[in-house]
């Protein structure tokens, strides 16, 4: 009775208030309370509708919600079945964003030709963000894991509220004046559109554009683009992602090094087959015995890494390790001592090594050397 009365009286209403108690259920449905100074109402936002929203709902956000009042009989409470939400104030900010975006785009601040390449192996990385925010912790943690042989240099700034844009812009200029960084990350973690606003201001855009040092932007959520993202030399969806973009992965690098050592030894081995005279000297030389030592050395690095790294990279390390084991076996098999054992043979005529089929004529005598001895032969007439 009450249910019918309420649901027919309020089939569609607009309510304005602040989001609190936000819960995003794994089912995709979103539940929250909408409140103002003197009242509150539970809201339910079903998955099919919630998924169409272009911004991220957050606690504390001011919104206008459209929906119908429904009653949940088992508990006897009523709720707003939300159809549509609009952030309050979005209109003005959105308009300012679009206007500035068009202006800077027309001036060429976003053009691809003006973007600077980000170095592959930086030694010192500048960071412009809040010294208390999650962004800084995320960046430090990712870089510690992937490539700790770098220095990080932070200029702490406020990343929201009035004056933040000026601080960010001046930090970018200071970083350039200081000069001794290879690349810089500028950004903050996620927040409401208002929170992210400093990164949509012209003064920040111009500072990024004027920077000689390549700038990687890392602002907020994956789905939102800021003006800073458009101007930056590289745009990362989150601070953690920015950290992954600016440093290589040392496990992959070690793997590459092991591969290179293998290739080097194999190429040398190949040549040795053809240069039998050089074999004895090389076998005895210090340098020939290096690759095995080097593989052992790199393996030790892997061991150290395995001990020091967290569980999430362990899997990748195991893969590298098994590759390294098979490489070592292959490396050992290409040693000159083993080449003959692998089925190669050396053909000699007199004192010289026969390098080509053209060198042997019918009737020639030749000796074939195997790993376990020599066989004298004679070339048959054609």
């Amino acid at each position: 009775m009450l249910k019918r009365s309420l649901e027919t009286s309020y089939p569609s209403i607009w309510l304005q208030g602040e989001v609190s108690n936000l819960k995003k259920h794994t089912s995709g449905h979103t539940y929250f309370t909408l409140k103002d100074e003197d009242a509150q109402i539970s809201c339910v936002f079903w998955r099919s509708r919630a998924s169409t929203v272009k911004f991220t709902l957050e606690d504390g956000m001011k919104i206008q919600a459209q929906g119908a009042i429904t009653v949940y009989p088992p508990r006897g409470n009523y709720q707003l079945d939300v159809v549509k939400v609009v952030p309050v104030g979005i209109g003005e900010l959105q308009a300012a964003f679009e206007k500035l975006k068009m202006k800077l785009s027309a001036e060429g601040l976003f053009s691809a030709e003006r973007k600077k390449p980000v170095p592959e192996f930086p030694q010192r990385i500048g960071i412009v963000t809040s010294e208390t925010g999650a962004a800084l912790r995320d960046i430090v943690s990712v870089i510690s894991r992937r490539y700790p042989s770098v220095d990080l240099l932070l200029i702490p700034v406020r990343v929201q509220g009035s004056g933040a844009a000026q601080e960010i812009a001046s930090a970018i200029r200071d970083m350039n004046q200081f000069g001794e960084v290879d690349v810089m990350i500028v950004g903050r973690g996620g927040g409401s559109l208002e929170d992210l606003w400093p990164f949509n201001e012209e003064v920040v855009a111009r500072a990024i554009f004027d920077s000689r040092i390549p700038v990687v932007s890392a602002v907020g959520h994956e789905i939102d683009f800021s003006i800073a993202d458009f101007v930056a030399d590289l745009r990362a969806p989150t601070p953690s992602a920015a950290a992954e973009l600016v440093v290589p992965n040392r496990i992959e690098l070690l793997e590459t090094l092991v591969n290179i050592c293998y290739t080097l030894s194999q190429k040398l081995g190949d040549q040795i087959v053809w240069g039998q005279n050089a074999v004895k000297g090389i076998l005895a030389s210090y340098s020939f015995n290096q690759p095995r030592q080097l593989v052992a050395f790199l393996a030790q690095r892997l061991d150290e890494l395995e001990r020091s790294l967290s569980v999430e990279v362990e899997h990748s390390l195991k893969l590298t390790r098994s590759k390294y084991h098979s490489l070592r076996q292959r490396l050992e098999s290409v040693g000159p001592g083993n080449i003959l054992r692998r089925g190669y043979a050396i053909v000699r005529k007199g004192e010289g090594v026969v390098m080509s089929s053209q060198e042997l004529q019918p009737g020639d005598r030749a000796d074939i050397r195997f790993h376990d001895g020599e066989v004298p032969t004679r070339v048959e007439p054609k």
Partner: protein
Amino acid sequence: MSAKKIEKSFEAAVKRLENIVESLESGSVPLDQTLALYEEGIELAKWCGEKLQSAEVKLKKLSKSVEGKFEVTDFEE
């Protein structure tokens, strides 16, 4: 080029290594040069491996005084 000369740049070391591997893979290098390239490659790879060993990220803070002088200090949380 010795490993000492490229000490400043990991990038240059990796580039040179790739370069060496390419030359050797082309198959047109005589044996004595192969040996030299091989030794250089091994030395570079070892140097790179050592560089990757470094213990911990160093986080510092950059500040600028009113006179415009820069100061780098340890970061304390």
